[in-house]
């Protein structure tokens, strides 16, 4: 019996499309012939909305882009605005920002490994990783009152000082983390099913990855050591010593390993920042009504998902003329078709999971 190619509609209400992504799959029995992502189910017109808001008002809305890494979004936008203003941020504020951003990277990667493992069928990992993620969210909650959409960074600094209580909480989280990561690694790293599902699946070469503009852990899993924190250090990242984990395989397994190793590096950065936290102000003087002379700036940071960029163009008023966000998930998702073609249907789920997309940031 000949099995004709069928078009399979995956999403927008599918358990493993990470939100409201829709994939138009053409499958020949189980083999995927074509993948076409259909976006826009979460499009909120953020960029248009930002044109009618003042500079500080935009910060809480950036939380809603990559909602698994809200602080990173805050940081990207705020750094772009500060660069546009030419504002010097106190060193203490820069360190606190680094602590928050790296905690957010930990939270994002923990959530990712859980979702990814759940997509591949190991549902227990999700709960284990979320236990630690909850602890990190508790830190955010204590620090600034929010858990998911934290609004943890302001133009010119941070809203609150890093007091001993929060620092102690962070240290406790970091102390418990290695054991939890080890549990997850022991469950997955060596498991034959996990290896079979991830190794050699969704391979992309370094050249293709650069061509597609892939950034973040998926790019570093192809052997390109591109990390903005090292390349163009921002927010005092040059003060910390850390490694950028790079692997050459370019498959799902290497993306998994890169992220697991990055978590350890993030923990190391946070410890350094806590130990070396300089005294001083945590907020620069920023006028209450912030007007920025005409100019334009493009600033990128290394968000958990990849390179997050903000283009901000001012026109002398208190509202930006244009804010454009370069979202890493949007760029990374473009590779999906390249990675999936010829693989089995089950792998689409794994590859999609390995890219770590968040629809809030893709659809803006």
């Amino acid at each position, binding site marked *: 019996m000949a099995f004709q190619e069928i078009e399979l509609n995956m999403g927008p209400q599918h358990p493993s499309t990470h939100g409201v992504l829709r994939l138009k799959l053409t499958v020949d029995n189980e083999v995927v012939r074509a993948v076409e992502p259909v*976006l*826009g189910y979460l*499009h909120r*017109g953020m*960029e*248009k909305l930002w044109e*009618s808001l003042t500079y500080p008002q935009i910060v809480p809305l950036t939380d809603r882009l990559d909602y698994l890494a809200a602080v990173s979004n805050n940081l990207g936008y705020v750094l772009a605005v500060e*660069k*546009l203003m*030419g504002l010097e941020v106190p060193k203490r504020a820069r360190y606190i920002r680094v602590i928050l951003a790296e905690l957010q990277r930990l939270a994002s990667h923990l959530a990712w490994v859980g979702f990814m493992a759940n997509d591949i069928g190991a549902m227990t990992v999700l709960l284990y990783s979320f236990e630690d993620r909850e602890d990190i969210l508790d830190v955010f909650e204590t620090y600034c009152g929010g858990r998911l959409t934290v609004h943890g960074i302001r133009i010119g600094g941070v809203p609150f000082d890093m007091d001993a209580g929060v620092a102690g909480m962070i240290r406790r989280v970091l102390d418990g983390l290695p054991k939890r990561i080890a549990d997850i690694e022991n469950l997955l790293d060596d498991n034959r099913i996990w290896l079979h599902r991830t190794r050699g699946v969704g391979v992309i070469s370094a050249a*293709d990855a*650069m*061509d*597609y*503009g892939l950034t973040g852990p998926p790019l570093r899993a192809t052997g*390109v050591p*591109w990390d903005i924190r090292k*390349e*163009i250090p921002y927010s005092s990242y040059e003060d910390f010593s850390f490694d950028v984990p790079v692997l050459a395989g370019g498959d799902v397994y290497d993306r998994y390993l890169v992220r697991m190793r990055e978590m350890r590096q993030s923990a190391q950065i946070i410890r350094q920042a806590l130990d070396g936290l300089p005294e001083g102000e945590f907020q620069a003087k920023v006028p209450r009504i912030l007007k920025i002379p005409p*100019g*334009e*700036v*493009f600033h*990128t940071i290394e968000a958990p998902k990849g*390179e997050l*960029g903000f*283009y901000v*163009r001012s026109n002398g008023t208190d509202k930006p003329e*244009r804010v*454009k966000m*370069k979202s890493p998930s*949007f*760029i990374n998702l*473009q590779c999906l078709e390249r990675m999936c073609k010829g693989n089995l249907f089950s792998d689409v789920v794994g590859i999609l999971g390995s890219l770590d997309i968040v629809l809030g940031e893709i*659809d*803006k």
Partner: protein
Amino acid sequence: MPEELTDRPDLLQVAEALRERFGDPVGAVAFEKGELAVRVRASELPAAVEFLKIVRGFNALNDMIGLDRHPAPGEGRKRFSILYQLYRFPGRLRVRLVIDIDEGEAVPSIVPLFKSAGWAEREIFDMFGIVFRGHPDLRRVYLPEEFTGHPLRKDFPLEG
């Protein structure tokens, strides 16, 4: 202290090379906040991108940004601009190519040079209605096909 391009010999070199290759009408070279922006003619864009990619080693297209200057484009500028953020890895160099275009003008697509431009160009088409000549699959990316208008244009009605 005013910033000078001469403080950044690496970027200066790129700017000089672009000027040399495409002649003076390459247009305004702006240096601001440590970022180099070079204006090129829309028709010469693929050549300029190719030159930067192959000769100068800019191997990543970070982003494409659309701009609408409506209603006051400013002196000597056209209504729309598209900004191409190029990055050289390794080397920490960023260059912004700027092209100006008017309503109804088509822009040559750079998808053959950078695959990452595929969705970026679709997004600009979606949001600004700028047509990219030679794009393999130019459709709206966010909004439904039957949507009328292009939301990021400044004359898009904010209230319906």
